[in-house]
């Protein structure tokens, strides 16, 4: 940009001499631009179709709420105009009776039942039971008839849920993912203590990820430093050893850790044979196992960016610092560390972002209390088929990672986060 700006005064004077020149230049630049865009097009189209679009659709699922409007259209309409306070009038009862009657015996009944069950446990049974006894007699009061089928129809909590969830969009999943719910009066409340799992989950995910990141950096930094200063042959050997873990699948390695770390495993046997411990250490199906296995898997991601930055640090900078009177510790603190910081930041970010999303390793090596957010996203996607909640958890994960990246960018400078 600067070059263009500084060139413009000259081009003005040229344009006076040769009015066709500016047009020629812009024509040739346009050609160049089109060529560049054509080269970028495949990757842009691919990314848009298979990454950005699915991501946006899945994110949208965290607020998407089509079920009630689709399967209970009359009820949704009445609920939208109702205040949500106390007990609704006859029209509401008539609407839901008509809606349920319309989908009686169809799969839709199951779907809407599951959807309402998220917000109100037991709702599914109520709908099935009610639908079986429909339709109500001609001319009778829908309200009396429904309450006669099940007393729960008189419960304001049920109608509160129907009212809150009748919109096209919902904040239900996002709130649930934060251990919050809305009271029938529309107030935000924390869910009952025994149901609060997600805040703990974020905390656990972050603390495991931070621990793994810190360990990877602490172990990786010296390795990278030695590699960067080693001779060509030694460095390429070390690089190969660092990369060896990439040759094996994550699943195999995680399973191998179970075998290595179990009570009768190699690690415990060896430690006992050496007389360091007398009884096996609990190393697997707990937090320690998760961290050991994750550090092992992620270490190369820390070493490689640090190594690549360290390679670029000239030995002369370190020698210069020493010749100027700085002790080795001072050289490290004031010259080596600042110059390698971009690599540390890049490696740390990479390890952190990867470990926040880890799923397979904690699932195999961890205990029930060590599962991270990835496990729950998978659970809600595959087993519970609550895609809204899975999406909400994913959205918060994305937000946390983005926030950390931004904070780090502010701290270290974005241009230094690149892997050079």
């Amino acid at each position: 940009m600067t070059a263009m700006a500084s060139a413009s005064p000259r081009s003005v004077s040229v344009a006076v001499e040769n009015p066709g020149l500016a047009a020629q230049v812009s024509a040739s630049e346009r050609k160049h631009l089109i060529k560049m865009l054509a080269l970028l097009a495949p990757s842009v189209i691919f990314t848009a179709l298979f990454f950005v679009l699915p991501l946006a659709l899945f994110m949208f699922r965290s607020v998407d709420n089509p079920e009630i409007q689709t399967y209970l259209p009359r009820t949704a309409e009445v609920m939208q105009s109702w205040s949500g306070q106390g007990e609704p009038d006859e029209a509401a009862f008539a609407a839901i009776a008509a809606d349920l009657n319309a989908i009686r015996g169809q799969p839709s009944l199951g779907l809407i039942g599951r959807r309402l069950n998220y917000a109100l446990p037991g709702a599914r049974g109520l709908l099935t039971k009610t639908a079986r006894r429909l339709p109500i007699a001609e001319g009778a009061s829908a309200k009396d008839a429904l309450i006669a089928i099940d007393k729960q129809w008189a419960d304001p909590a049920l109608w509160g849920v129907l009212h809150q969830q009748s919109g096209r969009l919902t904040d239900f999943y996002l709130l649930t993912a934060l251990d919050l719910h809305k009271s029938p009066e529309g107030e935000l409340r924390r869910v009952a203590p025994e149901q609060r799992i997600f805040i703990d989950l974020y905390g656990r995910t972050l603390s495991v990820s931070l621990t793994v990141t810190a360990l990877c950096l602490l172990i990786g930094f010296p390795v990278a430093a030695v590699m960067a200063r080693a001779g060509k042959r030694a460095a390429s050997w070390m690089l190969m050893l660092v990369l060896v873990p990439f040759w094996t699948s994550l699943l195999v390695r995680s399973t191998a850790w179970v075998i290595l770390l179990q009570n009768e495993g190699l690690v415990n046997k060896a430690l006992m044979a050496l007389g360091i411990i007398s009884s096996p250490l609990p190393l697997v199906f707990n937090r320690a196992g998760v961290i050991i296995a994750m550090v092992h898997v992620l270490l190369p991601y820390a070493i490689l960016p640090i190594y690549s930055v360290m390679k670029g640090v000239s030995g002369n900078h370190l020698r210069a610092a020493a010749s100027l009177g700085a002790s080795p510790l001072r050289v490290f603190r004031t010259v080596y560390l600042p110059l390698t910081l971009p690599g540390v930041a890049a490696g740390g970010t990479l390890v952190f972002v990867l470990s926040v999303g880890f799923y397979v390793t904690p699932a195999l090596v961890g205990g029930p209390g060590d599962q991270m957010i990835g496990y729950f996203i998978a659970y809600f996607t595959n087993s519970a088929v609550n895609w809204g909640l899975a999406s909400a958890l994913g959205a918060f994960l994305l937000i946390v990672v983005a926030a950390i990246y931004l904070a780090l960018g502010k701290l270290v400078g974005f241009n230094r986060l690149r892997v050079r």
Partner: protein
Amino acid sequence: MSIQAMAADAAPAGEPLVRFSRVQKSYDGQSLVVKDLNLDIARGEFLTLLGPSGSGKTTSLMMLAGFEAPTSGRITLQGREITALPPYKRGIGMVFQNYALFPHMTVFDNVAYPLRARKMAEPEIAQRVTAALDMVKLGPFGARMPAQLSGGQQQRVALARALVFEPELILLDEPLGALDKQLRERMQYELKQIHERLGVTMVYVTHDQEEALTMSDRIAVFDQGRIQQLAPPEELYESPANAFVAGFIGENNTLEGEVVASAPHAVTVRLAPDIAVTATAIDPLAVGDQAVLCLRPERISLAPGAAENAFTLEVERLVYLGEATRVVFSLGGQELIAKGDPMKVPVSIARGASVTVGWRTADCRAFRKE
């Protein structure tokens, strides 16, 4: 301990500032990069270590700075042995090839670095850094980052940084190698001025013989791990101690032949069956020895009537150099180059012309062929 503190109990005058005694260096345990180096560096002198790459000059400098440990031998600084002293305790200023400025610090912080390492008070640091930057004419550049400076400016910052803590000894490792010719010449001049003004001792490594000749008090010519000759520039140029020095410093004709007659200081060397020249013997040479003759092109007279060693030769080529014209002959199958002022080269000299050339026996030096 700082240099200043050491200067208080300085050795008596006449004692060299630096002394290498029998220093050897080998990296692989087989070949020696530096062989039996004995070198005294006097206080205040500008000494250049000159030689082709791999000659051991940079290794010698690195041993003095403390970045390489000698395999054997001793190095003393102001009478104190520093052979095993780590570099940061030596108090020697150093300017590196490509400057080695810290890219993450401003110019000011770069120059302040050695002072902060010495835990000096900030007000004094500011004062000293300002003075050092003024000295290298970079007063207003303190807030810039090194990357925002030109090569010459970076070079000056590196110099200011090496000088700011007032070391008595400054080492410069090909500091001007990355600059273009014009800038290099200006920096040579500035460096020399600073040397004279401050009276610091400078040890300068270069492979550029012109740079060495213009700047140095003494030059140590290195080749194959040894100092081939240690002498002031004039002496090095006028009386090279061996064929390597003669060839490395300045332009030189190298003629090879067999000694056919030997007097105490002069020898007659036969270059071809019918061509014999007389030369000053530097090495002792006996009849039958193989000799190398060294003769500066500008010492060959192109004017007719030359006294000694006169030959009539055919001009093979003329090379116009601007300040001089090079005339290339063949003498007994060996190339002989003469160099003359273009204004004074006779117009009769043209390609194919016959010219009588000659030189004084004193200007032609004979060495034993290695």
